[in-house]
């Protein structure tokens, strides 16, 4: 049984390593700012900005990949000037993420790309809900089978004269 538990500790370690790797990967991509944070921090490099496309604010030629719209946060809104490939998912009243730079001079966010709301929570919970029960079931079955083999080995093969129950 010791080798059995050792093997499963190995599986657990690999799983944790993998989870850590994923977490590290996604924290880099997850970092998206709300309009409030953007105005507060005034970052100079490229950032990801998340907000709702304000109703009635979307203008421009989507087919050519040019658009201007307002991205609303909780309290403030930011004007976004989009220039990039024709967007698939740009429409009013939709929450999305724009990738680009903030220009404090013109009070405009120059976006070069759009991304959908990532919903990492759903992805994570689906994988946890799918994989964790499987692992638990495999573990408990493997342990049970090992225990049964031991038990079979211990209980004697049917031999009438050797049974302790026989009332002599």
């Amino acid at each position: 049984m010791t080798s059995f538990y050792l093997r499963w500790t190995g599986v657990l370690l690999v799983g944790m390593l993998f989870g850590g790797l994923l977490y590290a990967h996604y924290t880099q991509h997850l970092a998206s700012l709300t309009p409030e944070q953007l105005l507060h921090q005034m970052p100079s490099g490229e950032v990801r900005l998340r907000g709702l496309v304000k109703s009635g604010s979307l203008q421009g030629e989507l087919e050519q990949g040019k658009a201007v719209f307002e991205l609303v946060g909780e309290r403030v809104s930011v004007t976004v000037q989009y220039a990039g490939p024709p967007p698939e998912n740009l429409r009013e009243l939709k929450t999305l993420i724009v990738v680009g730079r903030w220009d404090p001079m013109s009070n405009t966010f120059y976006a070069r790309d759009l991304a959908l709301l990532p919903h990492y929570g759903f992805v994570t919970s689906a994988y946890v809900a799918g994989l964790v029960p499987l692992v638990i079931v495999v573990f408990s079955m493997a342990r049970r089978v090992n225990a049964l083999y031991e038990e079979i080995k211990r209980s004697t093969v049917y031999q009438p004269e050797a049974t302790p129950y026989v009332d002599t």
Partner: protein
Amino acid sequence: MWTREKKIGLAMSIILVVSALGYLIVGNFGENLVYFFTPSEVKAFPPDYYHKRVRVGGMVVKGSVKTYPNRLGMTFQLTDGHATIPVTFDGIPPDLFKEGQGAVVEGYWSEEQLFHSNLIMAKHSEDYMPIELKRAGATLPRKDFLKTLVPSEDSR
């Protein structure tokens, strides 16, 4: 126990069951059994189909969706590439409903050549590809039924 007749009977039963199930499966693949009508078929409805609850599948024509200023609902055009029907809809459309996408609407066709609907089932396609490929104008070898209706839409 296993007489000749019993063996023949069993073989024939197996053939019967397999062919019945096969008819069901293959019949559907050939789309002989319709589960929604196309706009062309709706236009050609005989009068006894008017005011009967049916489903119509098609593509929402780009630029045709008009909402009312002061109440729920909207009108739009549904096409299959050959015929286009006007649809009036009361209610809240699902998230995936948008112009240029496929939709299945439930309702009835009336004398004034208008489809009255109160249920929209938007379909998102089964195509999966990265966004770069999509922007490069990639298409996949098999196309959704609703998308094949309008060939020009694919190159977008």
